[in-house]
């Protein structure tokens, strides 16, 4: 396995609260890696630290053995693309203009016709062509998510980070978005790191699952090895029935494990 991205000893504190603690991770080229964990476990923070949206206090992240901290932001934007969870929007933009933004790291000041062509190619690939002139804000949640993925694709990076791409989507759109991600990774030789809540989605679509708890990695490996009853009990505090279908584990949650009073689990 060729190591595409490696995270060494990463620590991030926010107002002297540890969010990530000495985190190490290696991601193989051409993989889909899902990062799972309870709320507040640091999934999104990890994603943002990798892309240097948040600046970690300690540790390094490198891609193809190049330290990201030493890269100018524009170079970084040609290496890693980031798909945000939800995009705050104040002013109207068309879908085309949103995707064109992804060309920013490659541009001089003026957008050339080459960039327009790439935007069209990305839109065609994701089946968004007909929506090109619609305002982004008028799309459905699933369409918006795909447009944001299209924007990341327009950056032409080898790595794509996604922050909870399926939250707020119905089941059809969840599968739609995850299929898009899988197809892209397989066909375009990308590496995807996905922060995700839905364990069954993660199991179905990932090559590797990384399970986090309170800023550290508890388990990492193929879905079948990580999504075990013991891990779910210790990380999520739930009892669950883990079954296997087509070699993929799926989880039937049963109950909470009662919280011991006094010391014990953080709420």
């Amino acid at each position, binding site marked *: 396995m060729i190591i595409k991205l490696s995270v060494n000893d990463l620590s991030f504190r926010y107002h002297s609260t540890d969010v990530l603690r000495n985190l190490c991770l290696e991601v*193989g*080229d*051409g993989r889909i890696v899902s990062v799972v964990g309870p709320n507040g476990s640091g999934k999104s923070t990890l994603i*943002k630290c990798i*892309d*240097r*949206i948040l600046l970690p206090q300690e540790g390094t992240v490198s891609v193809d053995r190049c330290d990201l901290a030493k890269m100018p*932001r*524009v*170079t*970084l*934007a*040609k290496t*890693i*693309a*980031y798909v*945000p969870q939800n*995009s*705050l*929007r*104040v*002013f*109207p*933009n*068309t879908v*085309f*203009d*949103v995707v064109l*933004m*992804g060309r*920013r*790291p490659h*541009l001089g*000041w*003026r*957008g050339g016709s*080459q960039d327009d*062509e*790439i935007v*069209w*190619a*990305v839109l*065609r690939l994701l089946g968004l*062509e*007909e929506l*090109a*002139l619609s*305002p982004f804000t008028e799309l459905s949640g699933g369409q918006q998510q795909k447009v944001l993925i299209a*924007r990341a694709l327009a*950056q*032409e*990076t*080898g790595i794509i980070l996604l922050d909870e791409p399926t939250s707020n989507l119905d089941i059809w759109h969840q599968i739609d978005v995850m299929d898009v991600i899988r197809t892209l990774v*397989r*066909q*375009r*030789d*990308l590496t995807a790191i996905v922060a995700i809540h839905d364990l069954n989605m993660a199991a179905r679509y990932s*090559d590797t699952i990384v399970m986090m708890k309170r800023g550290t990695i508890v388990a990492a490996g*193929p879905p079948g090895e990580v999504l075990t009853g013991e891990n779910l009990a210790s990380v999520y505090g739930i009892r669950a029935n883990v079954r296997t279908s087509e070699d993929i584990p799926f989880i039937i949650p049963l109950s909470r494990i009662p919280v011991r009073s006094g010391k014990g689990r953080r709420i």
Partner: protein
Amino acid sequence: MKSVRRGGTAPGKAWDTGKKTRTGKISKIEEAHAQSVWKKVLFLLALATLLILAVGVIITIGPMPITVPEVYGILINRLIPGCFSIGKSMENVVLQIRLPRILGAIIVGFGLAICGCVMQAVLKNPLASPFTLGISAGAQFGVSLAAVLGVTILGGPYFLIGNAFLFALICSGVIIGLSGIKGATSETMILAGIAINYLFQATNQFFSYIANDDQLRLMSVWGMGSISGLNWHSILLLGIVAVICIPLLYSKAWDLNLMTVGDESAKSMGVDAGHVRVFIMVVSSLLVSVLVAFVGVIGFIGLVAPHIGRMILGSDHRYLIPAAGGLGAALLLFADAISVNLLAPTTIPTGIVMSMIGVPFFLYLILRGKRREYWS
């Protein structure tokens, strides 16, 4: 375990651009997009033409009766001396009063509108403008200081302008500095701006309270905003500052597009959001400070011209910045023409007219029932 795929296209140079269309022709939607871009360019050209025509008309009207041929005779005389023989007083009116006034309206309108436009983008707030952020209140404070206490930094005819400029600059410096401590987010900048605005308003009220009638009149006339005080010297100065600042702001058009979708996304696409925000605020505050110092408080343009631009062209700053500037220039030009001619020979302060005609126009645009803020 899935193997790593090779032989496929490597990331980074992967798009078979242009070959994907089955027919080999441009698809309908691409054509529609090309048309929408073309429409934006056309709009800018039309706006420029309108401005030129408006200048051509407005220069011929004024309280002093000068016929249209005489006006153009004077202008041609200026370029090629000795073509026509026209009275000295008429020449003075056209060259020393009307022309600087028209140019001043265009520069000030253009500058204020562009500053409002870029501030709205970097602060991600449609209500941001040079005036909601307290920059004008700072300038007013400088004027009050000169009028009431006689504290001035420049002597002679520029004593008000010098003070207004200095305190506008101090005010924006404080806003940028305060928010810099907290990491230059749009929220801290807006809150700092509004807080500073209240502070200076309070001090201005205090000065109004202790001022005598003459001082009060000086302060309130300045506060109404007028471009009648402009002469060729001040036009030159305004022009130089505008010519330096506006291209600097325009060079960030792409970054501004990205900033409107949020700092995190902007960073992930290679734009250092904090740096761009501070850069834009520094340059636009400098421009606003100079403009406000010379013409006083002409509000509303900086707020409204960018919004009209957005309604017409959408939010791509490569087109929006010149559109907002042109609209601002046109609005102020018309407002000023009205303020000079409506109650001639009395000139109404331009700021008053601006709001009186601008607000109904803006409300009309909002209420026209365009749910989508688009043309294309």
